């Protein structure tokens, strides 16, 4: 590799940034055209290479930025000429951070999926869809790269909707099944839900852009940010409205209240998708958007407060739901919503570095949690009905109940012995999530909580409470899944996943554990991002806050052990130990506070009814008026023809009447 030759005159690689998008696009085109002929290995090689090359580009950008921290803008192709917006890439420390996370974690997950999907397509009975999966995955990398490298809000929006599309395509990847593998429309509907919820958010984003364009005359980041202070003087309301509209977009993409409802259902997608899109990368786009727009948000405290409050409420709300779920992925899904709430709250109080820090850490540990969960699920699945190539001959020779669900934690238990690598990595990730020092999330979450304490006490208390619940539900999960006795045949006979999967788990576990080093003890990340975000925060380890949160985490985790670990469940049908003490509260949490039902009753069903009414109106009023006009014309014609009686004298009378009328008129005038 002749790196020096690839450098341009200024000695950087910035001009190569379009390749971060183009490599995955190339990969998906190849797989789309030849995927069926290349076989699984070929498809996997192309997809992983494409994603990996994208990561290489990101690394090159990182190297270049070290030399020139100011970054660069790389124009690529003219685009929306009427509004003077081109395809142009922006390379700065913020975008490159995101690029590294996206392509890095993305590539790891590509690797994991190589093995995972091999089994998945076979369990679902359509091996032909292997290539399609990697096409979508590459498309996702491309779209995400557009999102994070775009030089304007419009280009960001392209990636924004593009990742939404990939999310939709991958959620409904097994469009003929539900999550348990029964023939159903459920997965397809989950995909629709995700896309539509995102569209509602995008509606706000779009309006925000329109308003922004009409005030600033451009959507280009550089110009908007440089003019923002002036505009804040001339149009004080404008920036507030714009930032709030953007927030609506954020609630859609980053699954905040009130649009979070799609994310739990999004777990219908294959597990690598849940890890990559619905945990590590796409859902953090909202955080990225606000961080990117920090110039605007900093100008309007009211918007910041709203953002912080939304984030904190979401963090707590989702955590309460996570406590009562039985589906291993659903718990993680609500956990993701909750953690995203932390990040959003952080950007809301202006703690952009902390948010980004947590974003990165979360990308590692949450991806790991999902992948490990996927490993658990596959392990149970394989034990439940082994593939023919693995010596399985009779699908149902085990004694699992008919409602067995490989994702339901009540059918697990004791797995730490049969799938040890998965267990250990899961444990690391779980402890990270719980905020146990010195794992990555301890530092990042701690920074967030510390920053909110000064800025917005209400948010601080909400977050503390959420942090308590976080450690509890992850503890509950770990004890339910890995400890105690196996509560099903499959759990007892589970086998460890192949090395393609476990190796990724190990790498991610290492990253989760050591991720804290990014910003502690030396604030590398703060300095790095400071080039873009403008301010370098004081390297934060507030001993008091740190101590408190560490204590909370440990206490909460122990509480989980006390409830679920000390006296493990004996069978799958046994009620949850919290059911009795918490009563209706537990039921409400388990039922997700009936938010879905509320939306159905208040929004969706009325809309469907309205559509039906409109359709009926169209037929019975609008079209009926047209047809009735025609009918009336015909009717009158028939009546007129009826005058023609055939009797001569009537005809003569008609003439005579005509004469009379003429005479009357002449006399009368």
């Amino acid at each position, binding site marked *: 590799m002749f790196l020096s030759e690839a450098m341009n005159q200024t000695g950087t690689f910035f001009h190569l940034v379009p390749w971060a998008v183009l490599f995955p696009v190339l990969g998906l085109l190849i797989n789309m055209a030849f995927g069926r002929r290349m076989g699984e290995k070929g498809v996997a090689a192309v997809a992983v290479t494409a994603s990996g090359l994208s990561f290489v580009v990101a690394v090159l950008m990182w190297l270049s930025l070290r030399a020139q921290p100011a970054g660069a803008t790389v124009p690529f192709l003219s685009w929306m000429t009427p509004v003077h917006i081109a395809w142009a890439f922006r390379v700065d420390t913020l975008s490159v951070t995101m690029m590294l996370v996206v392509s890095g974690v993305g590539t790891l997950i590509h690797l994991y999926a190589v093995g995972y999907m091999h089994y998945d397509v076979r369990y679902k009975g359509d091996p032909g869809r292997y290539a399609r999966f990697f096409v979508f995955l590459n498309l996702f990398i491309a779209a995400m790269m557009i999102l994070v490298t775009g030089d304007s809000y419009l280009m960001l929006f392209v990636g924004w909707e593009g990742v939404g599309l990939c999310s939709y395509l991958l959620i409904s990847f097994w469009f003929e099944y539900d999550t348990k593998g029964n023939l159903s429309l459920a997965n397809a509907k989950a995909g629709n839900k995700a896309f539509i919820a995102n569209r509602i958010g995008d509606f706000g984003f779009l309006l925000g852009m329109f308003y922004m364009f009409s005030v600033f005359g451009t959507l280009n980041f550089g110009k908007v940010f440089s003019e923002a202070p002036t505009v804040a003087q001339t149009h004080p309301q404008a920036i507030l409205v714009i930032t709030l509209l953007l927030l609506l977009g954020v609630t859609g993409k980053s699954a905040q209240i009130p649009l979070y409802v799609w994310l739990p259902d999004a777990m219908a997608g294959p597990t690598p998708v849940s890890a990559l899109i619905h945990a590590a990368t796409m859902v953090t786009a909202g955080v990225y958007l606000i961080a990117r727009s920090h110039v605007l948000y900093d100008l309007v405290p009211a918007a910041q407060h709203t953002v912080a409050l939304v984030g904190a409420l979401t963090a707590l709300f989702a955590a309460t739901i996570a406590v009562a779920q039985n589906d291993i992925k659903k718990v993680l899904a609500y956990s993701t919503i909750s953690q995203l709430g932390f990040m959003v709250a952080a950007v809301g109080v202006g703690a952009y570095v902390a948010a980004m820090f947590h974003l990165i850490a979360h990308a590692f540990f949450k991806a790991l949690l999902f992948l490990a969960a996927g490993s658990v699920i596959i392990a149970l699945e394989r034990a439940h009905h082994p593939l023919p190539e693995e010596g399985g001959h009779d699908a149902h020779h085990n004694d699992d109940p008919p409602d067995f669900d490989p994702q339901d934690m009540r059918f697990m238990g004791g797995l730490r012995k049969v799938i040890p690598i998965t267990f250990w990595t899961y444990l690391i990730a779980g402890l990270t999530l719980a905020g146990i020092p010195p794992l990555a999330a301890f530092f990042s979450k701690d920074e967030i909580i510390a920053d909110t304490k000064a800025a917005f006490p209400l948010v601080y208390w909400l977050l503390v409470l959420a942090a308590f619940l976080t450690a509890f539900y992850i503890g509950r999960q770990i004890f339910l899944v890995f400890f105690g006795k196996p509560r099903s045949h499959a759990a007892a006979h589970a086998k460890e996943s192949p090395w393609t999967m476990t190796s990724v788990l190990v790498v991610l576990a290492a990253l989760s554990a050591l991720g804290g080093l990014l910003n502690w003890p030396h604030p590398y990340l703060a300095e790095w991002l400071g080039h873009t975000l403008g301010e370098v925060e004081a390297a934060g380890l507030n001993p008091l806050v740190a101590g408190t949160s560490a204590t909370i985490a440990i206490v909460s985790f122990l509480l989980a052990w006390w409830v679920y670990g000390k006296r493990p469940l004996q069978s799958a049908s046994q009620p949850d130990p919290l059911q009795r003490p918490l009563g209706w509260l537990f039921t409400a949490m388990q039922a997700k506070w009936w938010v879905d039902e509320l939306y159905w009753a208040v929004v969706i069903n009325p809309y469907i009814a309205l*559509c039906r009414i409109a359709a009926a109106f*169209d037929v019975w009023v609008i079209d009926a008026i047209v047809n009735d006009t025609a009918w009336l014309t015909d009717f009158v014609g028939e009546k007129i023809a009826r005058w023609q009686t055939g009797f001569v004298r009537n005809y003569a009378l008609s003439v005579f009447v005509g004469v009379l009328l003429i005479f009357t008129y002449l006399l009368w005038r």
Partner: protein
Amino acid sequence: MDFLMNPLNLMTFFPLVGVAIILLIPRERKDAIRWVAVVTSLVSFFISLWMLSMFHAQNPNFQMVYDKIWMKTGGFEIHYAMGVDGLSILLVLLTTLLTPISIFSAWTAIEDRVKEFTIAFLVMEVGMLGVFLALDLFTFFVFWEFSLVPMYFIIGIWGGPRRTYSAIKFMLYTMVGSVLMLLAILWLGLSQGTFYLPDLLAKGVNLPLHLQSWLFLAFALAFAIKVPMWPLHSWLPDAHVEAPTAGSVILAGVLLKMGTYGFLRFNLSLFPQASVKYAVPIAVLAIIGIIYGAMVAYAQKDFKKLVAYTSVSHLGFVMLGLFALNPLGIEGGILQMINHGLSTGALFLIVGVIYERTHTRDLNAFGGLWKIMPIYGAFSIVVALSSMGLPGLNGFIGEFTILLGAFKSPVLGPVFTIFAATGIILAAVYILVMLQKVFMGPVKEKNLGLKDLNWREITVFAVLTLFIFWIGLHPAPFFNLMGPSVEKLAHGLQAAAVAMH
């Protein structure tokens, strides 16, 4: 001879050469007839490319003008005049592109009276091109009215069970508006002493506002029915549902654009003050159309009807853009006309593909088709996404520009954009539900044996998809073609708006 040396005349009337040849071919030799039709329309397409190569994008005026006096009577002259400018060139290209595509797509779908079918299509092309190119009100009206006839036959002969009803409804409904427009044309010609558009534009229509308004309304009625704008749309679902696939493609792709083009070419250009006066009511109707069309589309059980109602919604966007009365809105409107032609044309082809295989359009009869027909599924998803305005595909470019135009419009404003933008959410709802019902979910047993696309269908979809991506990713060439003409038009409108206030 100089008549045929003009590319516009040559392109417009070349299909008649094909008609003449087809008349000589025995009716049993269906493939020969089809080939002649496809090749003829392709020649017209190449002539249109020739025209494109001679077109100067920086020139906002009419180009390649061919102007001869048709008849000279009493007080004034009626011209036969053709010309092209930035407002029409894209629509001309769309027409010459979609005609061969739709003839090609009907290769196996139409087996009965192939001779008449191809003749109808070629004659139709003459009418459509004439409408977009005519520079004289009389010439325009001749083509406008004439283009009804072949479509009447296409729906009426090769359509579904209620074809005669739909055909006559299509015809009568359209005529109600166009006869009043004829009177308006006459009135305008009489009062201004000419029907020749460049003259009218150069002098400006010199009438008091209330007379302008009446003329504006008469033109608007004709075009609003054609577009169709809410609540004058009810001929559309019937016509679309009954028409054969190729007919639907042309109907949605080109014929509806004749309405929006009419607004652009005549209402906005000739009556700028009246346009300012009526911009708000028309925009309100457009928005009702956007939302209503989307809602009714959602409630349909017939695949084709669903697509038909999406047209009501999409053309609402076009109308909103045009009546934003600023360059942004108008450019978006024009581009969206093209986008709608490509996307909805393709959607109708999608319906046609499955109808040809299963002989049903009931949305509940499908499901999981992506599994058995992956190529079909892939194209369909792209087209559907284009239709719902996914960024990176063509629909978004148009909708974004339109909405932004309306937002910044001197006569409309943010409220219009807010309501119209809900259409983007609702579009996602009906498109996704459509995809879900047809392409997702479990496969029905009777559909298991369905064949994926053949090379002919793949060619058709590939061409359309190419344009869908091209406009979505790099629309600059398209905007450049229309830019100067739109600027000129918007300049006049701006002046009128200033004069009004």
